[in-house]
């Protein structure tokens, strides 16, 4: 059994007793524990069920690479799945449940899958669920969705009660990793006088060194670490952070840091996580190395653990994994585990060393302690299901014939160490295969490149492939000095620390144990614990032709789980290489992508949630509308009233009332969001002639003209009314959405094509409140307020004038988007609310009512006016909308003119704008397609048109619509069919899009 030893642990000594809840069981831990060490101290080795076969799984590692020990954590609001026990610091009251089992961890129905394992090989889902197609939606997809993914998602209605923040930081040197190498590198960099940021993902400085032992400068390495931490803490130019991970390295020295402030002390106040957005001139990754599992049958049985992790739990937490631990290895480091366990009085029945020549000095030490060592041997298979009960010993060079069974309750395995190269690789650093040490390590000749073309990332310590303390300490010191100097530091003098040399025999690559294991063993030999991928799966993928490592990964799902294959990738690609008969470097690695380990969505969002998620644009009338029944509609970052609801009224009722009232009496619209661009200069007319399809330079001062804008591709991008303010000045109205983009469009052409033209553009959209006064009583209310002459004689249709109305400075445009008598009146933004209230008050006797965007849309649709974004979608040209009259024939050139000459633009079969009148007076669904007989190449019904705008018109008491139909204008009167999503069909007659007042008499009074 696993249990707490009396000997104590580095992190837990003197810690208070804590209690926590695991699947409803109350368990005890100690302050300083991780959740993993606390579970192990309670003999809770089995922590979950595997993804595919629901096999019992135990804790394998002691750090962020842990694949199995994932838990649901928290209550309802703060619920989070897939929390790793190995990096979760224990606190009093911690509550977790295990994942991926039903009905219970001990008894699980899904475990039946293990008997089906030969039916669930690599690529199973791809092979199984393709045919028959109709089963996909109702049978296969629900099944896969239910089976897919570990843990469950938080409920949509819950809101995370915690807060998160972003933090910006600029530094000369950033060192990632606070092990002995990172500390040494940071210290050396700091000596050069530059600003240094040192981060460590765990709560402790020193990394593995104090567990592994050794000496630096004559001191035990643990003491050396303590001294370094003390010196660094005293340096003004050094910032140190524990519980902070270097999550990703990006272009030009951008780094994301993920700091966990309150995960270990949830009762404290303040943000839970902090995302650091860092710019560093130089980055040193001292990210250490991760131990690889060995591939033998039953290597996933609870009780099989990485040798380094077994040592960590014993030394750091005083927790033993078992009473009798067999050690199996291909390198010398695992002997340290055996020696450590023996020193704690625990039984180590055997060290199984796959190397025929065995180990070096450490092996001699182990033998001297009386531990049995078997060289050239292997584990044929592990006995036990929910817990290791023994191993069968065999010859590594053979096929797995059992020599003897060794009883044990734990197995400590080591397949060698792989440098953590993730951060080096994120931004393009290349790797080389180190044949001697059987691992990929950074190639210093090919680092990630910065803005100046020099490398900006270097590597220190075991992350650089230096696994021996004597080597790595000098390597880290050099890396720190070089980074400091590259970042502008001085040539600091410092003595290079010296580590006591050790004598180790080299690792020997062992990718399968035993070497000749048959299919029965290989199909019980796990590579990826989290995604349940076995040696036999990767071999099958290779056999089926998935030769690229990226393809094999996706086909088998190796390395695609939440741990991203930290334990499995190297072993997997070694098996793939072997199956393909090619050396490992030729197979290569899959791409390393940030973040290094998962970071919370909360941290990514930071403060940007709720009301501050996006700044809201409000017109001067926002508050008034909000208190007068506005049903808000988001329009870009603006909020516009969709309709103004009176008490007890539905949205639909309100719209119908507004539509009728505007046609019959008087409607007031907040049109302030319309874009208003001032275009000014001697060449302003010439410039607008290029931007609009029609002629603007001939517009007379005091007049308005409707204009269209196309892109260089010929497609419609915006429309609006242009007013000429004086000889050199135009005011261009754009759509609400176009205010910023058309401003940018104008700037782009002025700056990059016609930079010698004398024109300036200013976006004055928010300087004015603009109110449309619309309806038969429009003139009456303005005359009542008094001021400038707004009679037909003084201010005709499509004219504008400056003056005062009711004492307000106003610019009045006689333009109409509704077909009614209409004045659009701009007043300074600060006067907008007062002017609006004056109109409401004066208009009462004329039936004044505000109206929203839906009424605006319906009124324009009744007039057949197009709306950018409804009738246009980036593929529509003016000719499609029968707007030929707005395309100047006199102008030599304008944006879009050449494009309109391209063959498919001039095609007579293009879909063109028509009105659509439903036979049964119902409202057509928006976006519905008109269909005819026959099918296209994809087997879909042939289509020849679609609905672009569709509304219920209260004036006509029926649905009205516009659409684009092939040869539409030539098919007036024809009845065409629009299938609905429920399978029924609506018939509609093709009609003229202008339904209301085709002569335009009403607006011109």
């Amino acid at each position: 059994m696993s249990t707490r030893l009396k000997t104590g642990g580095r992190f837990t000594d003197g810690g208070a007793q804590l209690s926590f809840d695991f699947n409803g069981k109350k368990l005890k831990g100690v302050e300083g524990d991780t959740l993993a060490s606390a579970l192990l101290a309670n003999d809770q080795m089995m922590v979950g069920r595997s993804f595919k076969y629901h096999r019992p799984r135990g804790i394998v590692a002691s750090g962020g690479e842990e694949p199995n020990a994932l838990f649901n954590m928290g209550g309802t609001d703060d619920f989070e799945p897939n929390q790793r026990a190995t990096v979760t610091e224990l606190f009093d009251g911690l509550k977790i449940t295990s994942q991926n089992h039903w009905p219970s961890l001990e008894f699980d129905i899904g475990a039946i899958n293990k008997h089906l394992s030969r039916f669930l090989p690599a690529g199973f889902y791809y092979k199984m669920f393709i045919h028959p197609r109709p089963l996909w939606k109702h049978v296969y997809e629900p099944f896969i969705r239910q089976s897919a993914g570990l843990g469950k998602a938080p409920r949509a209605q819950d809101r995370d009660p915690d807060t998160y923040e972003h933090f910006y930081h600029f530094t000369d040197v950033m060192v990632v990793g606070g092990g002995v190498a990172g500390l040494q590198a940071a210290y050396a960099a700091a000596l050069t006088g530059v600003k240094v940021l040192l981060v460590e993902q765990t709560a402790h400085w020193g990394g593995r060194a104090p567990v592994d032992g050794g000496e630096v400068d004559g001191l035990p390495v643990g003491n050396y670490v303590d001294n370094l931490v003390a010196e660094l803490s005293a340096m003004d130019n050094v910032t140190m952070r524990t519980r902070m991970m270097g999550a990703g390295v990006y272009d030009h020295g951008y780094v994301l840091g993920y700091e966990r402030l309150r995960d270990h002390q949830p009762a404290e106040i303040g943000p839970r996580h902090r995302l650091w957005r860092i710019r560093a001139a130089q980055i040193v990754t001292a990210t250490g190395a991760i131990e690889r599992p060995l591939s033998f049958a039953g290597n996933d049985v609870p009780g099989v653990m990485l040798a380094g992790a077994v040592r960590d739990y014993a030394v750091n937490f005083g927790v033993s994994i078992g009473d009798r631990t067999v050690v199996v290895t291909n390198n010398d480091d695992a002997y340290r585990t055996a020696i450590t366990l023996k020193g704690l009085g625990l039984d180590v029945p055997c060290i199984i060393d796959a190397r025929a020549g065995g180990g070096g000095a450490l092996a001699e030490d182990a033998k001297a302690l009386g531990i049995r060592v078997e060289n050239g041997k292997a584990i044929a298979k592990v006995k036990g299901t929910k817990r290791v009960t023994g191993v069968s010993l065999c010859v590594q060079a053979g096929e797995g014939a059992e020599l003897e069974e060794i009883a044990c309750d734990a197995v400590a395995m080591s397949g060698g160490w792989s440098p953590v190269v993730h951060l080096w690789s994120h931004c393009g650093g290349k790797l080389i295969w180190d044949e001697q040490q059987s691992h990929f390590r950074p190639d210093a000749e090919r680092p990630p490149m910065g803005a100046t073309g020099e490398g900006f990332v270097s590597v220190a310590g075991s992350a650089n492939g230096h696994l021996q303390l004597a080597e790595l300490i000098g390597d880290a010191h050099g890396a720190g000095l070089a980074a400091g100097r590259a970042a502008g530091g001085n040539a600091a003098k410092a003595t290079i620390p010296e580590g006591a040399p050790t004598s180790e025999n080299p690792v020997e690559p062992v990718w399968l144990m035993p070497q000749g294991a048959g299919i029965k063993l290989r199909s019980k030999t796990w590579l990826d614990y989290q995604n349940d991928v076995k040696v036999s799966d990767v071999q099958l993928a290779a056999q089926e032709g998935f030769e690229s490592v990226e393809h094999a990964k996706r086909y088998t799902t190796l390395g695609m789980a939440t741990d991203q294959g930290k334990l499995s990738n190297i072993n997997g690609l070694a098996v793939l290489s072997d199956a393909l008969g090619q050396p490992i470097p030729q197979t290569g690695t899959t791409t390393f992508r940030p973040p290094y380990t998962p970071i919370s969505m909360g941290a990514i969002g930071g403060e940007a949630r709720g009301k501050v998620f996006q700044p809201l644009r409000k017109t001067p009338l926002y508050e008034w509308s909000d208190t007068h029944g506005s049903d808000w509609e988001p329009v870009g970052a603006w909020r516009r009233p969709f309709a103004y609801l009176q008490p007890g009224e539905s949205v639909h009722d309100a719209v119908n009332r507004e539509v009728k009232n505007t046609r019959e009496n008087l409607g007031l619209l907040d049109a302030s969001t319309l874009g208003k661009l001032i275009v000014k200069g001697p060449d302003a007319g010439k410039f607008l002639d290029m931007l609009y399809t029609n002629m603007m330079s001939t517009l007379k001062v005091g007049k308005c003209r409707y204009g269209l804008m196309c892109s260089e591709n010929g497609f419609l991008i915006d429309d609006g009314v242009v007013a000429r303010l004086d000889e050199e000045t135009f005011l261009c109205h754009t759509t609400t959405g176009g205010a910023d983009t058309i401003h940018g469009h104008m700037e782009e052409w002025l700056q990059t094509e016609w930079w010698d033209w004398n024109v300036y553009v200013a976006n004055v959209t928010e300087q004015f409140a603009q109110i449309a006064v619309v309806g038969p009583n429009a003139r009456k209310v303005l005359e009542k307020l008094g001021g400038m002459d707004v009679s037909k004689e003084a201010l005709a249709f499509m004219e504008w004038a400056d003056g005062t109305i009711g004492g307000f400075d106003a610019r009045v445009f006689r333009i109409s988007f509704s077909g009614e008598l209409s004045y659009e009146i701009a007043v300074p933004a600060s006067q907008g609310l007062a002017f609006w209230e004056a109109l409401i008050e004066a208009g009462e006797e004329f039936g004044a009512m505000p109206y929203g965007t839906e009424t605006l849309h319906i009124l324009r649709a009744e007039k057949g006016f197009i709306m950018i974004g409804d009738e246009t979608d980036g593929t529509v040209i003016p000719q499609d909308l029968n707007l030929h009259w707005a395309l100047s024939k006199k102008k030599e050139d304008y944006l879009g003119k050449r494009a309109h000459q391209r063959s498919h633009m001039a095609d007579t079969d293009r879909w063109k704008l028509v009105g659509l009148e439903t036979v049964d007076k119902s409202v057509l669904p928006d976006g519905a397609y008109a269909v005819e007989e026959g099918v296209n190449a994809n087997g879909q019904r042939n289509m020849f048109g679609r609905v672009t705008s569709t509304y219920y018109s209260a004036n006509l008491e029926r649905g009205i619509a516009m659409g684009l139909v092939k040869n539409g204008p030539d098919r007036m009167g024809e009845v065409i069919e629009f299938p609905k999503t429920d399978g029924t069909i609506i018939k509609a007659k093709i009609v003229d899009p202008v339904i209301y007042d085709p002569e335009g008499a009403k607006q011109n009074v």
Partner: protein
Amino acid sequence: MLILECPCCGVTGEETEFHAGGEAHLKRHSVGSTDDQFEEYLFMRENPRGVHLERWRHNNGCGKWFHAARCTMTLEVFGTYPAQTYEPPQEIKDAISAKRPGWSWRNFS
């Protein structure tokens, strides 16, 4: 996330301050051009592994367009220059030549 220097206002800023605008030094073809010329102008773009001349706008800053000479492989920035030009200035060409001898891009080298 790149760091670029705006040649118009002199600010050295993060990529989020800027907006990429595609290839630089396009020659506008319009009315009177052949279909091939117009197609080339509208659609045909360089996609080099290496030296590239591209447009950027300092849209969250001074609002000005400028050009950058950049390596698409290493992300090295050889220099930035105002957009009001038909070809990269000599000092930009020299800066590229110093790092990538023998480079060429469309008609420039």
